[in-house]
């Protein structure tokens, strides 16, 4: 026998059932384990109690750290099979007493059957049917080893559930929920409907894919066009720079090949000194030819030959004696200092 709780909200799909004590068999276990092990223990206990198609409800109450009190309610298949399709919440009535009873008070609980209820300060619930010797609350108190209470409290459970509001602890719900799928008769497959559905799905997929491809291609086209414009500017800039670099290279090479003529003239004057007089100087790049008169043409030659500014020094024609002097003609090559070449300021750098 069950009491069905009235739902205040029409949209609520879950139905709540309060099971009286005749609908289930209660098993209480106390575990002193970690939370991880508790899950394993509860699962094992459920496997054991689930035999013979019973439906087992469970409710974990934490007594203290690492100490749990787990209530199992084994519901007979005949009760659970009467539930309709959808979500049902089955709450054994004794589990409500954990919320409704004030600890250390004896209650006379009116339900399908009347029984004594007592919740200890440690949270342990004791219940006994009011019958025979246990019709007297003193004997119930004696059995529990507590002081008798002359006027036990009255609790009409049906009245409480149907007419008065009360709060269910959330920890009670996970183990009390039963889901049942509706069993509809499976008719013949509607090929037309399924064909339409599949067709629509495929058409939708094709449309989405086509639109995505088209959109992505348009985006890429515009990106490439934008990049092309900037790349063309880069190419054009690169072309100009290459052209300029080429010209710089050409002129820099030319400038580096040339030698400062005045340096050559200065070097000739310095080496010759007073040892002779020049009549002719001829420069062709770094090749130098000098002609003149001197007391000793050999002295002149030796001066140039000993100089580190000239190489390949030699007479290029016979020495002739004219009056008291010798007429000479010397050819040589000017050896420019390495730092003298970089006179232009243009660096020959390639890109």
């Amino acid at each position: 026998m069950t009491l069905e709780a009235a739902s205040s909200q029409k949209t609520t799909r879950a139905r709540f059932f309060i099971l009286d004590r005749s609908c289930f068999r209660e098993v209480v276990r106390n575990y002193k384990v970690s939370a991880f092990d508790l899950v394993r223990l509860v699962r094992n206990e459920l496997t054991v109690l689930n035999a013979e198609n019973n439906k087992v409800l469970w409710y974990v109450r934490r007594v203290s750290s690492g100490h749990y009190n787990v209530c199992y309610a084994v519901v007979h298949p005949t009760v659970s099979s009467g539930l309709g399709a959808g979500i049902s919440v089955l709450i054994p009535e004794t589990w409500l007493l954990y919320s409704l009873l004030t600890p250390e008070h004896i209650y006379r609980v009116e339900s399908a059957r009347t029984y004594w209820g007592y919740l200890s300060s440690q949270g342990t619930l004791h219940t006994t049917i009011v019958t025979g010797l246990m019709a007297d609350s003193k004997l119930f108190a004696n059995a529990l080893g507590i002081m008798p209470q002359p006027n036990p409290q009255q609790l009409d459970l049906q009245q409480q559930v149907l007419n008065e509001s009360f709060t269910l602890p959330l920890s009670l719900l996970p183990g009390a929920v039963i889901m049942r799928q509706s069993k509809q008769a499976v008719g013949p497959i509607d090929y037309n409907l399924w064909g339409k559905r599949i067709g629509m799905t495929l058409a939708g997929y094709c449309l989405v894919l086509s639109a995505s491809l088209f959109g992505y291609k348009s985006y890429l086209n515009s990106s490439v066009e934008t990049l092309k414009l900037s790349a063309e500017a880069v190419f054009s800039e690169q072309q100009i720079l290459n052209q300029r670099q080429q010209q710089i290279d050409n002129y820099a090479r030319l400038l580096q090949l040339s030698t400062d003529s005045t340096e050559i003239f200065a070097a000739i004057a310095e080496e010759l000194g007073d040892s002779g007089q020049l009549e002719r100087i001829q420069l062709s790049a770094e090749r130098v030819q000098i002609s003149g008169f001197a007391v000793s043409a050999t002295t002149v030659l030796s001066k140039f030959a000993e100089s580190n500014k000239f190489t390949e020094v030699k007479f290029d024609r016979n020495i002739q004696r004219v009056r008291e002097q010798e007429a000479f003609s010397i050819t040589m090559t000017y050896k420019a200092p390495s730092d003298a070449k970089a006179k232009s300021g243009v660096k020959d750098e390639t890109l």
Partner: protein
Amino acid sequence: MKLSEQHKLGVAVIGLLLALKMLFVPWLAWVTEQTDEINQLLFNKAKLEQVERRSQQLLKQKTNIEKNFETLNTLWLDAPAAQVTVEAFQHLDKIAGEFGVELTNRSAAELTSDGAVLLPISLFASGTPEQIMVFIHALEHRQPLFQLSRATITRPNVVAKKVNANLELQMLVKPGGEL
């Protein structure tokens, strides 16, 4: 007339095959074509993005090249092709006049362009050895720049104070118009 179930199925299969042939296959070809084009565009985009990155490097090179080019711009003669000879001679006259060198003969050949554009000039100059030296120095160091390719300096006789110089020069000229 009602079609039997078998006929309906046959018609449906034929319809399906026709739809595949007329719609799905062309659509698939279109998708393949679009995918290829997208791949090509992605490739182009990646390449163009590389160019974008290269432009950053180009910017660094540009500063260096511009600097060198500016220096070069001060070294060569920047004049229209028809005016090059005139301006070169004016420049020569100016320097010669400045140092008291007498130019007795001068001539210019056609512009040569073997990488660098040059104006060959040959001239005869007369002056004291000192005047000729500073004249040559000025030609080689003042802008626009001359390069001395050949020089022959002779003294007519032992007692003569002046010397004659036969100079073959090349003047650096800016390449025409394209820059």
